[in-house]
């Protein structure tokens, strides 16, 4: 099975771009399935259902959505298998800019909004720097000069990625994205590794502490001056 993992900031147009790309995949005749990961709520599954693509929703609730996506990969692949899908697309929630849920043999796609300013590519971290494809959306809302600078900034962070400028409303650029989906390789879960390690998340806050004063916190903690230590027994 081919596996595409799509990350990107909320509202960047991941779903809109995917709907167009998957319509192209439908026309080619390849069977696809979508898993949409979100934290608390999503109605994106109805949008995918409209183009007749089997869709499964995963809500991570209290767990980090990226950790949740990685932890549930096996279930997702099994579910896609049951639906006879040859292409599994996982759309992540993509929130904290620290994780990149791409695995080594999946196709890693990062969707990034051009109106978020030319410094955004420098801020978003591994989900851009380890992506195979960077999809720039909303480019029609800024000037050509700013669009070109945005593109250059992406290449500074990830010189090897392929950039696709796409329009989630008209579907422009999405055929190229579908082409890349088709070219991606088969994955087998036993061999798969993450491209980038998931962040440390082992402090008292992770297990439900609500008091804010420093003296209540234990675990691997990093201070604002950059000093990191383990507090506890």
């Amino acid at each position: 099975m081919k596996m595409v993992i799509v990350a990107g900031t909320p509202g960047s147009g991941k779903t809109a771009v995917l709907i167009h790309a998957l319509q192209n995949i439908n026309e080619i005749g390849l069977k696809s399935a979508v898993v949409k990961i979100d934290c608390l709520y999503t109605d994106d599954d109805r949008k995918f259902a409209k183009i007749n693509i089997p869709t499964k929703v995963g809500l991570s609730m209290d767990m980090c959505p990226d950790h949740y996506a990685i932890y549930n990969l096996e279930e997702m692949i099994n579910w896609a298998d049951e639906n006879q899908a040859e292409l599994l697309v996982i759309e992540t929630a993509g929130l904290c800019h620290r994780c990149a849920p791409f695995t080594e043999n999946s196709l890693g796609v990062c969707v990034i909004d051009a109106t978020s300013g030319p410094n955004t590519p420098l801020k978003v971290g591994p989900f851009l720097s380890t992506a195979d494809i960077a999809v720039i959306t909303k480019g029609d809302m800024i000037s050509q000069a700013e669009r070109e600078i945005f593109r250059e900034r992406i290449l500074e962070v990830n010189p090897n990625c392929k950039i696709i400028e796409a329009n989630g409303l008209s579907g422009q650029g999405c055929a190229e994205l579908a082409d890349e989906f088709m070219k991606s390789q088969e994955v087998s879960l036993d061999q798969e590794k993450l491209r980038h390690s998931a962040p440390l998340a082992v402090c008292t806050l992770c297990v439900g502490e609500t008091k804010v004063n420093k003296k209540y916190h234990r675990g691997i903690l990093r201070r604002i001056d950059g000093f990191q230590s383990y507090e506890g027994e």
Partner: protein
Amino acid sequence: MIEEITIIGGFDKLGNPEPVKKAMIKKGEIFGVVGPTGSGKSSLIGDIEQLSQEDTFSKRKILVNGKTPSYEDRTNPRKKMVAQLSQNMNFLADMTVGEFLSLHAKCRGAHSKCVNAVVELANTLTGEPIKKEHDLTILSGGQSRALMVADVAIISNSPIVLIDELENAGIRKHDALEALAGHGKIVMVVTHDPVLALMTDKRIVMKNGGMQSVVGTTEKEKALSQKLNKIDGLMLSLRDQVRNGEVIDDIELKNLEL
């Protein structure tokens, strides 16, 4: 070398095939794009900027020298054949004019010396001087427009130039068009302004998102365009007087030879 571009018609907003099936623009020609607001002028310009391949709402296809351009030609700014002055004049970039222009020059593979030339040219087009140290986000509408015109003319020195409504921001539009058009380029100007429309060689008439017809500028229109230029010059000088707080006594009409 780009000798010509061909626009293969697609569909209008209602899904009907466009009446104009094919339009060709050759090197050295200036084309106008006219039509009411919402008639699809900016979309047509957008299709050409992206060198669309039946992948936009209109399903138009753009050929360069009769051939489909490569993906690389369509997307790599260093190879980009098209420079566009769009209506989007709100800068989102949180940086100074100088930083912005240096970055853009780097993207386009232009020399960093261009930056001073861009600022100089921009300052000939607008009344309020722009400095390299200014923050982009505080520029006025006229300053932004002038800066973008100069940026397109000098840094984005592409063989195809697309201009979307030059008249809206109170800059010297004739000087601006002259700076942009350059020698031997393919130029398209979206306009509501008869002065600019009659300066072109041909004009595409838009309606309901579709290309309705291509009208050639007649000899009579070209002569009229000269007269309109004079009227425009009068309007500009009046505008400057009003802007500068002067009181207008009379309007000198006899020089217009109407």
